[in-house]
């Protein structure tokens, strides 16, 4: 059972093997309620594996993970009711309208048709997409589509929202716009856990970050505190000190500018 004292996410000695490859190697961390928590790490560090275990899409090899006080292995469906997710892949249905995309997700979370329509109107308004509600999603700009994905992930008023590279491929103004939206979601009481390649994003947006490398958590803390503790000027240097390497070169999609 969950109680109000539980952290939003609690990961303990989490390990996951894929064949002979160990993707997660005893990772432990906690995310407090209403935090924006960033998981930073190079490609292949275990970010996606961690997130998929917390989303009940992968089972851990060993260790425990609790989301909103619920064990992800013992009560996967209860966990799914409590979480939202924006995957890194673009997953709006381009043929459906913006509103239809949201009401579709509402149905998948078992809202009634009427609740679904009400929730869609509310979420599209919050995402500044009301006037585009009846447009097919393929006609929306990159930034608007990303906001639509966030709206889709909020139909169940999740206790914890997982964002995988939320601003990858967005230009700077769309990125800032999305940050403001993410803060607004947090202010409504949802805890946010995100992965990012952008250290600037971690610095500006996250209350706390964890640096993960080779399946292990190398450092955890408030960005400013981490800089102080490791005597670094920037989060980039913190990353270098914690992992012994620069943050892996930005993925190719990063070079694209979408308005």
């Amino acid at each position: 059972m969950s109680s109000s004292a539980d952290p939003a996410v609690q990961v303990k000695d989490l390990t996951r093997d894929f064949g002979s490859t160990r993707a997660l190697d005893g990772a432990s961390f906690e995310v407090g309620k209403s935090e924006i928590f960033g998981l930073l790490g190079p490609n292949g560090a275990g970010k996606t594996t961690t997130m998929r275990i917390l989303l009940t899409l992968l089972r851990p090899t060993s260790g425990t993970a609790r989301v909103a006080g619920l064990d992800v292995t013992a009560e996967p469906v209860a966990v799914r009711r409590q979480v939202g997710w924006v995957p890194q892949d673009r997953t709006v249905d381009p043929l459906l309208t913006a509103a239809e995309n949201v009401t579709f997700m509402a149905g998948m979370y078992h809202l009634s048709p009427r609740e679904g329509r009400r929730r869609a109107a509310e979420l599209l308004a919050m995402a500044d997409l009301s006037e585009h509600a009846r447009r097919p999603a393929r006609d929306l700009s990159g930034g608007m589509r990303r906001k639509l994905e966030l709206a889709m992930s909020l139909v169940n008023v999740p206790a914890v929202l997982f964002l995988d590279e939320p601003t990858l491929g967005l230009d700077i103004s769309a990125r800032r716009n999305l940050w403001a939206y993410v803060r607004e979601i947090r202010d409504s009481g949802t805890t946010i856990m995100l992965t990012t390649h952008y250290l600037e994003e971690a610095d500006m947006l996250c209350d706390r970050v964890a640096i993960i490398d080779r399946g292990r958590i190398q450092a955890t803390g408030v960005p400013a505190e981490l800089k102080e503790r490791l005597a670094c000027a920037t989060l980039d240097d913190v990353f270098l000190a914690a992992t012994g390497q620069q943050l892996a070169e930005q993925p190719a999609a990063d070079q694209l500018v979408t308005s």
Partner: protein
Amino acid sequence: MTAAGLGIQPVTVWTGLWREHRVLFGRWLARLRREPLALLALLVQPMVWLLLFGHLFGQMAATAQVPGGSYLRFMTAGAVVMTTFNGCLMGGVELLFDRESGFLIRMLAAPARRVSIVTSRFIYLAALTTAQGLIITAAAWIMGVRYATGLAGIAACLAIGALFGAGITALSVGLAFSLRTHSQFFPITGFASLPLTFASSALVPLALMPGWLRAVARLNPMTYAIDALRTLILTGWQAGPLLGTVAALVAFDVICLTAATLALRRGLR
């Protein structure tokens, strides 16, 4: 705004199944409506079978012994089953598209039952091919084809078509979860489609086939469905053979569903 984590309450099994199927079915339908060319093809293709093949082979068939006296009457059963076959054979590819785009895994993270994604596809394809079957029946009626078994016979024909279509859908869905990309899907279904159609009683009665082809056609589940429809259209109610067909098609469906389940276990994991 509602407090976080309090947004949704668990619902009963039936309410949950109804709500998830409602939006899943609605999405398949909306995707079809937004692709006008695909929709047009689905409506026109059944006519093409009937008109083109019906007239093309009808001339040749005039000299041969065609059961039912007219090739068009003979052909109607084949047109209904071929349309069901083609619709269902392609029916799994949307799930492959969803897998490729990442939409599928996003659906898997929702509390909706995973199997509903597949069952909604079965329901959608059964509805779609039934509608096509009705169009063919209406077109054939206009061209003078009367069912020996009347309205009840039409309903029985569509039900047998759906029973046959379910097995084909299972194969298609299984294929969609066994392949990595849709560029592998189309060559396989395209390659399977024509030989299976010709090695059935759709266009030519078994009696007029060379022996080896007749042997193959006898193993083809499409032949069973077509022969049952043909009896209902040309002859009348024949309980014995009809029940035999239904039993054979149920067995076919069970085999296909078992194969598809194995593929799904891997694909939906």
